[in-house]
């Protein structure tokens, strides 16, 4: 994908700041002037407002009731594997020590 140009980045920053109301007062007037003379920027500001509003309204979809039980089972297996592995490592270390002696 094409990387955005520095001009794209600057314009995006102004559009986002304006939409979120965090644009500095000194810049706001000049940005509004630019926006009023350019329908593409107006369209972008409008799209940013509407879409971020809608996305913010989307319901949060959490895990199902089964998740905790499945997670606990998977974690128990993980812990068992960890214990097994550390026992194997200990055993192989002690075997190598025996051989050295």
């Amino acid at each position, binding site marked *: 994908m094409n990387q955005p140009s520095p001009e794209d980045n600057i314009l*995006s920053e102004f559009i986002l700041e304006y939409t979120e109301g965090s644009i500095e007062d000194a810049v706001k007037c000049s940005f509004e002037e630019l926006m009023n003379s350019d329908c593409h920027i107006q369209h972008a500001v409008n799209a940013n*407002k509407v879409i971020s509003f809608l*996305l913010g*309204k989307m319901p949060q979809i959490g895990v199902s009731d089964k998740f*905790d039980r499945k997670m606990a089972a998977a974690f128990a297996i*993980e812990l068992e594997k960890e214990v097994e592995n550390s026992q194997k490592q200990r055993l192989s270390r002690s075997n190598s020590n025996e051989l050295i002696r």
Partner: protein
Amino acid sequence: MKASATVKLHQMSDEDVMEQLQAGVVQAFDIIVHRYKDRLHNFLYRYTHNHEDCEDLVQETFLRVYRSRHSYERIAKLSTWMYTIALNLAKSMYKKKKRMSLISIHADESDPDDREFEITDTNLLQDDELHLKLSMNELQKALMKLNDDFREAIILRDIQQLTYEEIAEITGTAMGTVKSRINRGRQQLQELIGDYVHSETF
């Protein structure tokens, strides 16, 4: 572990809880799961729109967090680190299965959007509520049509409410690129759902 110690874990910041996990306090894992399971699920669901795989991805994310606990460094926020793991897992699943583009766009009873839709804004009229619901169904479909880079940036910002700095860290891109993707992605979404949304409603 004593009850008082568990209470202390509950009161700790994410990063302190992670430090406890690194020190061998296994109960810290449960706290992390409890705090992040729904947030990660919501993120992954919006990114993949594939309910079947989502819980497996969330579970795998937590197991990876546990396995890699010693590589976590406190300079990063735990949430950022976890979102990065989840996003990478989702991307590799996407590559393996290459089936997200084949997902049905028709209504599905098992679709949580259909089951759990809820509007909290009581000022909305009934027609507006219906309109909002239709818009959101279209919006989810449109999200799936976006380029992956745009979709992840938009979900992390507008649905997960993360900061631009956090998104830049999770996606491994410059902040200017993140902002540009969000701006362009929102415009593409507006174009995709244009017929369903009248800005006057909002």
